[in-house]
């Protein structure tokens, strides 16, 4: 009881029984709509062959909300099959339900679709739809049943269409691959949208920005995690030359063969640290190829290869070759030349 009192205060209209249009004077084709309405029609396509379908869309829109205590009531689906003008001219396919196919609440509009197939080529237009509604503003009420036609107020109430003769189908034998005559059983595609639209700017922006941002964050984290790593990388390269040169200076007391062997080894180690030479005991040609690949001039690469060939000759050749060149000095000069070229390239 207490709740009923509260409800009465808050929403008195909830205790008022819904008004019904009067039976007196109600036309047989009354649509059930209460209010004031405007009806339009549109068709697509407007050129078809006999018995080919076209879609007719009827749009019913309320122009005024009825006065209290009446409430706006939407129409039931107009039945074209009950309108002789339509039935005589078209085979009509319409939904069995009274519900509209589309609703537009903000516009107070409802749309109904029909599929019409013209019966013959004499059909030249879609006749205007007759629509009956109840407008409670009239006194007495039974005078409130109003009849309008679609597109009332427009130049033409009907929609002109062009109907071609029915195409003749060939009686020639149907020859095609057997799989063409079979439809697959899987019909899930009916509700599976196939997105073919251009990706949104947000997605594209993410694709462009996300990888470099992630890598930048990774680099920052790496610098913080290994603060000396970058410096060590640079140092490794500078240290390689210092270590090699120091090692070469220490070969003075050794004999020529031993000096050649150690020079080659020191040079190889230097090239591995400085220029990432992969081989442990590289052939001269391999050295030249790797140096050229890293951008060293051909002349310098050839000199380095020649150094390694002389080292091999000293190690494996006749003893008289051993005393001709001080390979440690040659190696020292090569290292200086390489460092100069590499640093000048880096500065550039």
């Amino acid at each position, binding site marked *: 009881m207490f709740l009923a009192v509260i409800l009465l205060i808050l929403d008195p209209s909830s205790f008022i029984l819904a008004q019904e249009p009067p039976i007196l004077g109600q036309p047989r084709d009354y649509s059930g709509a209460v209010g004031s309405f405007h009806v339009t029609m549109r068709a697509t396509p407007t050129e078809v062959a006999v018995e080919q379908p076209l879609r007719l869309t009827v749009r019913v829109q309320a122009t005024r909300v009825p006065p209290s205590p009446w409430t706006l009531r939407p129409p039931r689906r107009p039945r074209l099959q009950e309108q002789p003008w339509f039935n005589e001219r078209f085979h009509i396919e319409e939904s069995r339900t009274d519900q509209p196919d589309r609703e537009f609440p903000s516009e107070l509009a409802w749309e109904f679709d029909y*599929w019409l197939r013209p019966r013959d080529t004499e059909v030249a237009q879609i006749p205007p739809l007759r629509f009956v509604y109840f407008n409670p503003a009239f006194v007495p009420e039974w005078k409130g049943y109003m009849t309008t036609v679609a*597109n009332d107020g427009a130049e033409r109430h009907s929609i002109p269409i062009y109907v071609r003769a029915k195409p003749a189908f060939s009686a020639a034998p149907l020859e095609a691959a057997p799989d063409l005559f079979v439809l697959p059983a899987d019909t899930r595609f009916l509700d599976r949208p196939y997105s073919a639209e251009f990706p949104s700017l947000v997605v594209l922006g993410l694709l462009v920005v996300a990888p470099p941002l992630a890598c930048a964050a990774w680099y920052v984290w790496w610098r913080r995690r290994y603060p000396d790593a970058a410096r060590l990388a640079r140092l490794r390269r500078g240290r390689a030359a210092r270590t090699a040169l120091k090692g070469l200076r220490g070969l003075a007391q050794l004999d020529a063969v031993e000096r050649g062997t150690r020079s080659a080894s020191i040079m190889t180690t230097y090239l591995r640290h400085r220029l990432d030479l992969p081989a442990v005991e590289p052939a001269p040609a391999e050295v030249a190829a790797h140096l050229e690949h890293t951008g060293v001039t051909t002349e310098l690469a050839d000199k380095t290869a020649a150094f390694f060939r002389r080292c091999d000759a000293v190690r494996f050749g006749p003893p008289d070759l051993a005393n001709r060149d001080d390979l440690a000095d040659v190696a020292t000069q090569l290292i200086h030349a390489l460092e100069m070229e590499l640093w000048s390239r880096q500065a550039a």
Partner: protein
Amino acid sequence: MTLILGAALQEADASPHAPLYAQARAEFEHGARLRDTDPALARQHFHRAGEYFDRLRQQGVHHPTLELQRGNAYFLAGDVPRAILAYRAGLWLAPHDAALRARLADARGQVAWSTTDKLGQPPEDNWPPWLPRVAPEVLLGLAGFFYSLFCVSITRWGMTRWSGWLESGAVTLLLTIAATGGWLAQEWQRGREKQYPVVVIAEDGILLRKGNGMAYAPRYDTPLARGVEGHLLRQRGDWLHIELASGQTGWVLRQWVVDDPPSTAPGANASG
């Protein structure tokens, strides 16, 4: 397998499009049953099936599978223009679909091209047969993947200063450019087809005119055959200004072409 199929069919039965698809399938299968005994009636049923597939499309079902079935229905009905239209619509959605391409080639093979010139003939497909066609989304994904690898390579080079990372970066950059270029080319083509929709000549012997009226002289002496494809450039009343696949342009009456209305097209209004 039966259980899965049954579940799939049950799921499809729950679809709001299922009743219409069932009608299309019924017409199609009826046509298939009659193909040997009454080819003319069979073609009629296939055409009806195609019309139901059209309605599904207008209801908003956009899928290459639907377009393939729609094209096949019209192809079997002998309506080559509508078949070509359906296959082109499917290829717009899925440019990489081999089945649609094969069907389109078969449909084009039914067109009675002119023997004197190449008016209206589509350009030859120079795509290498050994190179697979890739879906646009796959190309975009590859571009993103290679781009990510490029960023990683440059970052690792910054960390180690090892030249191998620079080489890796160069290779992945080239691959990124290639994938992005391929994707952009496909998207440009699809964007163009969206802006200038495909139309297909529906009758034999149509002449392209210099203007929007029968009073204008024909632009070319060679008449167009049923099935010649073009793009709609603009429309004036009942006349369409189209560009053929071979590049020529001209005007043609609307009733002599077929096109696919978009699913939300309002159509004609009596007052308009």
